[in-house]
Every structure is written in C-alpha cells, then in structure tokens.
C-alpha cells in the first residue's frame, strides 16, 4: 500500500511537472519544473531499489546539470525571457506527434505480454556498493572498465570543448 501511494504520487509529479516544464513561458520556471521531474525520477529509482542510481541522479542531474541550466538562463535572459509568441502550426504538429506516439507506444506496451515475477530483492541479487565497484573496475564479462575509461575521456573532451567554445575572444 505504501509503495503504491508513493508510486502514484511520484507519477503525478512527473507527468504534471513535465507538462509545465515544456509549456512554461518563463525559462526560470521551466528549469524549476525540470528540477521537480528529476527529483521525482530519483524517487522512482529508490522505489525500484537502485540506491546508487538514486544518489547519482540527485547529485549529477539535480545538483550539476540544473545549476548549469540556471547559469545559462541567467546569462542569456536579457531579452529572451519574455513570453514567446506561440506558433500555432508548430504547437499543433507537436501535439499530433506526441499524441500519436503516446497512443502507439502505450498500445504496444499493454498488448505485449511481459513475463516477469514480482521483483524481490534478496541478499543474492541485492546491488551493494561492493558489486558496483567490482563491475565498474573489472575487465571480465559484465564488467565495465573500458566504458568507464572512455567516459572519462569523453568528460575531459567536453570540459576542454566547453572552455574553448565559451571563452571570450
């Protein structure tokens, strides 16, 4: 019962805040609604019992990316923060695309018979910090040291690229 209340609350927060985030006229409000979506998503991870993912979602998304967004909005908001005149054609085409996509995807999801048992977290399949560390740093099967290193190169490249693009000339 408790999980159900938590799930429905989080789902409502996610859907309502997502709609508000893409329709808000002021960019600062859109960023705030995005923050609500990201925190509710972290709640879903906690409900699925991925505690590490919950922590990463909160620190990287809600802590890092959102601060970056707010900086960018404040740096560029001089004359672009006002209400943008609605382009009716774009809004209609977006609505049609989104509604068609939701209907098709939901139909496929509901029609498809997923075979799964109720997920129970046992001591064997519980994802502990030790298992995550071994999987991130190991070179064997189901271990990810290569992807981890590639990711660190990507982040370094992005840091250098960001500085190069945004510096004053």
């Amino acid at each position, binding site marked *: 019962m408790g999980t159900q209340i938590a799930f429905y609350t989080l789902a409502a927060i996610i859907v309502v805040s997502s709609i508000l985030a893409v329709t808000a006229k002021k960019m600062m409000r859109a960023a705030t609604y995005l923050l609500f979506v990201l925190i509710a998503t972290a709640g879903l991870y906690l409900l699925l019992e991925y505690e590490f993912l919950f922590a990463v979602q909160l620190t990287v998304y809600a802590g890092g990316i959102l601060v970056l967004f707010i900086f960018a909005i404040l740096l560029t908001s001089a004359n672009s923060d006002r209400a943008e005149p609605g382009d009716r054609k774009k809004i209609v085409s977006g609505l049609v695309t989104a509604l068609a996509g939701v209907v098709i995807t939901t139909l496929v999801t509901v029609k498809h018979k997923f075979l799964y048992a109720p997920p129970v977290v046992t001591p064997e399949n519980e994802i502990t910090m030790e298992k995550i560390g071994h999987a991130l740093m190991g070179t064997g099967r189901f271990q990810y040291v290569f992807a981890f290193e590639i990711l660190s190169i990507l982040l370094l490249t992005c840091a250098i*690229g960001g500085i190069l693009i945004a510096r004053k000339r």
Partner: protein
Amino acid sequence: MIPMEYYLTVSTLMFFIGVFGFISRKNLLAVLISIELILNSVEINFSIFNRYLYPDHMEGMFFSLFGIAISAAESAVAIAVIINIYRTTQNIDVRQINKMKN
C-alpha cells in the same frame, strides 16, 4: 506490487512530452530542457527493464549510469554553444538563428 506497465506508461508520457517541447518551443534552452526530459525517460526505462525482467543482472543499471554521465557531458557542451550564440547574436531564438556567419 506495481505492474511494470505502469512504470513504462509514466516514462512514455515523459518521453513524448519531451518530444512535444522539442518541436514546439523556440528558446534554445527550452529545447535543451526537452532533450533532458527525453534522456531521463530512457534512463528510467533501462532500470525498469533491469529490475523486472532480469533482476539478477545489473546491466540496465549501468546503462542508466553511463547515460546520466553522457547527458551531463552533452548538456555542458550544448550550454557552452548556446552562450556563444548569445554572445554573437544577442538572442537564442531558433527562428532568428539562420546564419552560420555574421
């Protein structure tokens, strides 16, 4: 227990709300926020499939983890580009940005 389809419906709605925002918004930062919504819904999906269909593995969780890191890198570069565009043209409206040089 909450059926898996409920989680999938939430992430489907989030994905297509992001698609709607991507098509209809004019501000470059709003477009970027829509992209973040799309990426976030995909990451939820990875962990849902992992938890419900393959509870003994953790591939889905690592896909989500790497996805979060990649979207962080992507938004950092995109925001650098947007700030640079703002510096040269004084606005970030997608309709006004139609020249590569000025």
